[in-house]
């Protein structure tokens, strides 16, 4: 059986049987994969105790139809800065759950891999902020083909970054300007601009949402993400615990 080595981030873990672990990985070359690490909870020889949430690893595995078999891992970083901060853990956990739910299985997506590693690196070095979270969310949606229709009003085609937008709970009909629809969640022109700018910008920390934009973007992105996933995000409850 052919073994493969790839860069990976641990995005989920599940204890299995007496000492095994089922590990969800997001890899650079193979996309999101699920693997079994036999004896991972008992032996630190092969896995060195680094099969931990958000750890960035070089992983060696053998392919199979369902679960790949993880043979060996080498740690790149366990992100000690994230692990020492409650907000860091909450935000990184949220990012991992989004990738788990939205990234298709076994489809490489190097842009998304770069986005996730950049976000984890940023969380490791600086405080977690709502602004960076929204930057991550909108870029993740854009990369995975779920880009929200923020450019123009679904009714009259006017520029939402100028006139602002109104979105309804269903989100299916698109986003309207305030003249075409008076009811629903509001997106100020400035918030729309920040979300659009985020998709053009490649670095965390360069786009900063103000308090109003954070509030509006949070409500909109939460609803938009919820409309594209199969179950509620468990990490949101944890995220709301952080100050």
């Amino acid at each position, binding site marked *: 059986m052919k073994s493969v080595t790839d860069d990976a981030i641990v995005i989920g*873990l599940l204890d299995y049987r007496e000492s095994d672990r089922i590990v969800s990985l997001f890899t650079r070359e193979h996309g999101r994969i699920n693997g079994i690490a036999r004896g991972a909870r008992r032996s630190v020889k092969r896995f*060195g*105790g680094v099969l931990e949430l958000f*750890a960035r690893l070089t992983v060696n595995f053998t392919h199979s139809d369902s679960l790949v078999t993880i043979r060996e891992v080498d*740690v790149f970083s366990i992100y*000690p800065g994230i692990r020492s901060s*409650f907000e860091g*853990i909450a935000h990184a956990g949220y990012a991992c759950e989004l990738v788990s739910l939205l990234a298709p299985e076994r489809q490489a997506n190097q842009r998304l891999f770069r986005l996730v590693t950049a976000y984890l690196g940023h969380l490791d070095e600086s405080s977690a902020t709502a602004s960076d979270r929204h930057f991550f969310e909108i870029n993740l949606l854009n990369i995975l083909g779920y880009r929200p229709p923020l450019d123009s009003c679904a009714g009259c085609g006017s520029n939402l970054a100028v006139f602002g937008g109104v979105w309804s709970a269903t989100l299916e009909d698109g986003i309207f300007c305030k003249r075409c629809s008076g009811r629903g969640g509001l997106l100020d022109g400035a918030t729309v601009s920040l979300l659009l700018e985020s998709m053009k910008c490649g670095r965390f920390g360069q786009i900063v949402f103000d308090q109003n934009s954070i509030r509006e973007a949070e409500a909109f992105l939460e609803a938009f993400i919820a409309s594209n996933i199969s179950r509620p995000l468990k*990490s949101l409850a*944890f995220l709301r615990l952080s100050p």
Partner: protein
Amino acid sequence: MLHNSHSLTRLVGELKKLPGIGEKSACRLAFHLLRSPANIIALAEALNEVKSRVRFCSVCFSITEDDPCAICRGNRDDSIICVVEEPQDVLAIERSGAFRGKYHVLHGVLSPLSGITPADLKIAQLLERVSNSSIKEVVIATNFSVEGEATAIYLTGLFRNHGVRVTRLAHGIPIGSDLEYIDSATMQRAVQGRSEV
């Protein structure tokens, strides 16, 4: 169905539910029990006794037959309390003989991906214990996983304004091990947590 025996099939089915027991092991155990009727009765009685007598201590939430448990009733240091994830962690620390205080079992840890929040754990009860007693130190002995660390950070924040000292178990290189075989994550932590001698 095994040898047309419904009861044997049921026994194998029940044994299979135990951790680490697959179909073959369950069959082997079932036939072993079948060959020694005295063992069957002893096992059934032991299971029944555990079911009827073992409960959680109303003070520390560890397992006990008498409430409060022997540790909570006993002559231990009341000023220090060790917070652990599960009842088996109490046994592990007790085996070491290194701790003479009391315990509090959380029955889990905060988990971002499982959505486990403080309301799902015995955190409110811990807060009440610390607020209403002479506890001076809270030792956080959750595991060194991401979830264990998150719980430790959360508890540290919770007790910041309660006038108690909050400590965390030390972690690093195991006694008797060679540095060359230590994994890099443990080594990173050991270097970060080095202490003056």
